[in-house]
């Protein structure tokens, strides 16, 4: 038994902080909020990490904590509106990519972000966890405290809404179909 058993936790932070931060950035669309929520996630994780068994999926566990933190954060409607308004007003605040020739990509991304920001919270989180961070449905169900079927349904509904919303946006849909 080591007295300084902190190396395990340090490794956890190093390995997962960037993607947890990005997840929260894609959820809040504001760098300052993402930073606060990521801090909250890892402070909670530190308090609880001793209960983690060696074979546990630490990544899924951290995403579940981050999801909880985000849901608490968005418990107030005003914050939800705020996130939506941010994307609408500024486009993507999530990335400052510079003016390289990715305009089309960026455009598609900004539109996507705008639509995602307007989704109901559970659908938004389920969609981001599945499609951006590629967690399996078991992990998503645990994160959202729902059944696996519900998790699938949230992602399906999110995609349907995205499809409807982008219809009028003229996203280059239907091209490049192999």
């Amino acid at each position, binding site marked *: 038994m080591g007295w300084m058993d902190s190396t395990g936790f340090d490794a956890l*932070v190093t390995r997962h902080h960037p993607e947890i931060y990005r997840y929260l950035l894609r959820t809040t669309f504001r760098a300052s909020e993402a930073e606060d929520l990521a*801090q909250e996630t890892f402070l909670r994780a530190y*308090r609880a990490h*001793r209960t983690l068994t060696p074979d546990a999926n630490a990544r899924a566990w951290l995403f579940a904590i981050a999801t909880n933190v985000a849901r608490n954060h968005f418990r107030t409607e005003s914050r939800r509106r705020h996130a939506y308004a941010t994307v609408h007003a500024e486009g993507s605040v999530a990335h400052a990519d510079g003016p390289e020739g990715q305009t089309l990509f960026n455009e598609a991304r900004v539109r*996507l972000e705008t639509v995602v920001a307007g989704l109901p919270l559970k659908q938004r989180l389920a969609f981001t966890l599945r*499609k*951006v961070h590629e967690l399996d449905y078991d992990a998503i169900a645990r994160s959202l405290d729902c059944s696996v079927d519900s998790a699938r349904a949230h992602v399906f509904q999110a995609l349907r809404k995205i*499809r409807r919303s982008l219809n009028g946006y003229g996203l280059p849909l239907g091209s490049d179909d192999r």
Partner: protein
Amino acid sequence: MTRKPTTCLEIEPALVAAATGEADTTTAARVEAHTRTCASCRGEFASYRAIDRAVGIWREAPSPVETSVRERLETRLADLRRRALVYRIFPSPLGPILIARSEEGVTCVEYLVGGRDFAHSRLARMPGVEPIEDGAEVEALYGELLDFVEGRRSRLAWPLDLRLARSDFHRAVLTATARIPYGAVRSYAGIARELGRPSATRAVAQALRWNPLPIVVPCHRVIGLSGALTGYAGDKLTLKQRLLSVEGVPALKTAHDFRVPRDAMYVRSPDGSAYCLPSCTWIPAEPPQELTLFGSPAHAEAAGLEPCSDCHPDLHPISR
């Protein structure tokens, strides 16, 4: 706007799954068969494929995390780690006992007398710490503590974290007490003298009364000048007697107290290298409070002392 045929509505979830790479082969084949004949669903499929590509772009977009973000996280984590005390309450034979540790060392051992729970423990009221109930690491400590209390172990080689001491003087008393060897006793006055405050006997007793680490910092090895045990953990004098008895230190019951027979104990020589009989010429008659007393030659030798070559305590053991 025309309504979709029922078959198209039914196949929609499968179509979305297939277009976004989530369908198994059977489902994908079913969707393919349908889209071959249904132009509107073919268009839908293409749209979802396009969305999937846009999501892919979103996913792959570089978004480096600024160093300062990580640094601020490290600062907050470091602060929490300094404050965090992991604890658990165990149902020991001595009654419920709370053990807490930090990343530096064992921080608190508390007898929860009278059915007190965590909310009424000292730890819960301590400012500047964050207690976290947990277990596995503390459980190992409890196992060793139990072995110690029951005489199966004579050392607790744990790093100590004395942050719960109430003052620097209290901390110095605890550190001095931690140096008393297993199976030995000293007096409150002796510790006061060692710390350069010979008149602070009562302050030493007070510091030990607030010992945050009983058993681990062996305040049970500190007794009155008369040999009286004088006090322990409020009213747990029998516990003090029991702990001493496990360590081979006799304590005889008197009308109100237990008393260590000071004149029937082995004495550490003033230079700290040997142990003597109380009558040895090396042992100064005054002041008596300086002495460290052992219950048996075995414990004195375990503490690294040689038998005195003048009084030969090994050849003439004290009979009690």
